[in-house]
């Protein structure tokens, strides 16, 4: 590192408040440099400012500040602008058809500066307001009786937060390790037969209408297969993909009886 740069470094450091991170972002740093050099914001000496900016960036990197990322993008922008101002124009008397390359940056700086001023005005409002003291809740709680149920503002965030709260609770709820609710296939067959005895036939879907769980669906289907095997029911389908209907069979001689069935 050259000595002049070293000097510049020190002058920057001297300028800085105790915390180097006082510059919240690249725009703040640029505004600081513009003010320090007492240059016109509408006519930024881009070479000078870019050099000082890069010096500061190097300092930040040496100090291992985490926030370098935002500053790097601006460094690239500055170098780009600088290179454009250095490019020879075909006719120096003619204005650059693309305009002053600094223009967009100047606008951003002004915009940024304006919002910094707005923030200060807000802060003043806040101070004025904080001089107005409100009646403490305790006073009214005594009048109304017990404190009313705390309520929250209803907006998208609070909705999301509430849902997250519910999920957190679900996670923390002790998991009761019950075995999956298994209806024995025999019981299920009895239930289905009882239902079929009240109607002549029923649709395939109807068999599952009182089932709410996956195991329940599986058991019902297994029961159906078993009933077909045991020739307790007959199943008809009207054409390919047509509705499937289930009929209860009258007892068939020679067929194994349900009661006699052995279930492994």
């Amino acid at each position: 590192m050259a000595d002049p740069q070293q000097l510049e470094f020190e002058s920057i450091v001297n300028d800085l408040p105790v915390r180097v991170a006082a510059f919240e972002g690249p725009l703040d740093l640029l505004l600081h440099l513009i003010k320090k050099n007492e240059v016109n914001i509408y006519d930024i000496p881009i070479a000078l400012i870019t050099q000082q900016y890069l010096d500061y960036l190097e300092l930040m990197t040496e100090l291992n500040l985490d926030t370098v990322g935002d500053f790097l993008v601006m460094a690239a922008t500055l170098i780009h602008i600088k290179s454009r101002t250095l490019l020879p124009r075909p006719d120096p008397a003619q204005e650059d058809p693309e305009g002053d390359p600094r223009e967009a940056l100047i606008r951003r700086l002004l915009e940024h500066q304006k919002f910094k001023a707005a923030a200060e005005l807000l802060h003043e409002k806040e101070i004025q307001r904080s001089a107005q003291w409100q009646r403490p809740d305790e006073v009214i709680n005594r009048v109304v009786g017990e404190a009313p149920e705390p309520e929250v503002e209803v907006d998208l965030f609070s909705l999301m937060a509430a849902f997250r709260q519910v999920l957190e609770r679900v996670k923390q709820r002790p998991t009761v390790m019950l075995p999956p609710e298994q209806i024995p296939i025999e019981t299920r067959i009895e239930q289905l037969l009882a239902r079929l005895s009240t109607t002549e036939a029923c649709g395939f879907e109807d068999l599952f209408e009182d089932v709410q769980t996956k195991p329940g669906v599986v058991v019902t289907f297994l029961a159906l297969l078993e009933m077909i095997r045991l020739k307790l029911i007959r199943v008809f389908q009207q054409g390919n993909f047509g509705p499937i209907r289930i009929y209860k069979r009258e007892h068939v001689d020679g067929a194994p009886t349900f009661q006699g069935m052995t279930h492994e």
Partner: protein
Amino acid sequence: MSDLKPIIEALIFASPEPVTLKALLKLLDTEPKEDVEAAIAALRQDYDRPGGLQIVEVAGGFQIVTRSEFHEWVRRLFHERTTQKLSVAALETLAVIAYRQPVTAPEIAEIRGVNTAGVLGTLVDRKLIKIVGRKQVVGRPFMYGTTREFLERFGLNDITDLPKVEDMSELMGFDIPLGEPTPQTALPFESASVEDSGETLADVDNDSSQ
């Protein structure tokens, strides 16, 4: 000090506890005791005018409160003020319905771990939810969903606009362990859209039986 009376009024007004004479004398330590007492007396006389507020002496101190004859109005205020806000229970229920709709009361109770019957009425009254049908299971319970007013209220175009939980974590710095989902926590995230919900509901039931 000419401002003694208004200063004492401001102090009594802003204090969460009744302000004792002793406390006033301490706060206004440059003022003679007689002056402070005289100012208090004058202030109390001011409050004898027929107004909405009164100065009462409680617990050895002074306090500005509403006049007793208007307490009914004050209670009404607390009863009515809930138009913009919801209790935590109501908001949670609303969140479950928004993310899981269509969903039945037993399903909501299962997810929240508490009964929500009363809260559902409140939400229907506020037009934030409505009955969207009946579930074809035993008991044929009502299924609830959110309303157009709900979308308007939350600035959403449609229900798929609801932020996903992934958005939440990124946005709020919430740490949600999406990596190793347990059955209970994994499910809700997948069902933000109404289209999925039929399947999801079945899964919830499945879940609850474990």
